[in-house]
């Protein structure tokens, strides 16, 4: 459900960063696994908030980052989508961390400045 709030915040953010007169083609965002973002819900939210705006048609690419796991028994470090994954040494006590990022990474915009009337 918080996907709608995130999409709304994204629109504001894109408008602050987009070079004047350029049309947005797509954006890349990154989310830590703690954010529990459902990719489909995120996509739907994005499409609905940009509907009938100058951003309409722009694609959203979401990368969900893995948990950074550290095993207290054998000190092994690895990445996992599951916060409770067992270590290969058998330990069930690995600690997940670094996982609540939520950021706009980059935007793809049209190369030529768009001077078409009505678009900007």
């Amino acid at each position, binding site marked *: 459900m*918080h996907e709608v*709030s995130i999409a709304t*915040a994204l629109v504001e953010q894109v408008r602050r960063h987009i070079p004047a007169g350029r049309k947005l083609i797509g954006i890349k965002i990154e989310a830590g696994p703690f*954010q529990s973002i459902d990719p489909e819900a995120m996509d739907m939210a994005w499409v609905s908030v940009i509907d009938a705006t100058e951003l309409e048609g722009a694609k959203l690419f979401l990368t969900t980052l893995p948990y950074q796991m550290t095993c207290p028994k054998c000190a092994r470090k690895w990445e996992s989508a599951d916060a409770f994954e067992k270590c290969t040494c058998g330990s069930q006590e690995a600690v997940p961390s670094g996982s*609540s990022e939520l*950021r706009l990474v980059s935007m793809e915009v049209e190369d030529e400045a768009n001077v078409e009337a009505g678009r900007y």
Partner: protein
Amino acid sequence: MQVQVVENILKLNDELAGMNRQALRKSGVFTIDLLGGPGCGKTTLVERTVEMLSSEMKIAVIVGDLTTARDAERIAKFCPQTVQVNTGKGCHLEAHHVRQAMGKIDFSGVDLLIVENVGNLVCPVGFDLGQDVKVTMFCTTEGVDKPAKYPYAVDAADVVLLNKMDLLQYVQFEIEQFRSDVKRLKPAVEIIECSALKGDAGMKRWTGWIKERMAARK
């Protein structure tokens, strides 16, 4: 053409939350963001907490729900400075909701502000409101797997409450499993087991925890 940005998406919310935090601290108010699943007992906890602490300090409450003013009506019986926020379609409180609600509160002499978030273990977690501490509440009737299923709610918590301890004997709830899941996600976090309805020893620990934190900040 690619434009590199790399910026927190919730930047504006975070900035507004920072302003709330500054204003609240300046007024000497300690602020709690209380979150937990629907019906875990947040409003009951607020009622009892106000009842237990109101002889020692002045308290204000902001309560968020999608709709209705029912929680505020309940809490207002114990606390005259209660403001209901209806989020409509929004599944969590954001900094601007709290900012608006703050405008309806007279903070002179207020020591403690409790913000009851919308019942939800996912969405409220990432939205800073300007609080001093985040409190995540679970309860014995929602099943023992909730910390494991909602790890962010544990990770973000300054203290974890396990409510409805009076019902523990009637439900299947392996409390050791609960404790070890919470500890694994956040080894240093304190777990307070309580019954907000009965006002048990756990509730004394909870109000004690609040007072300790308030004292530590002064």
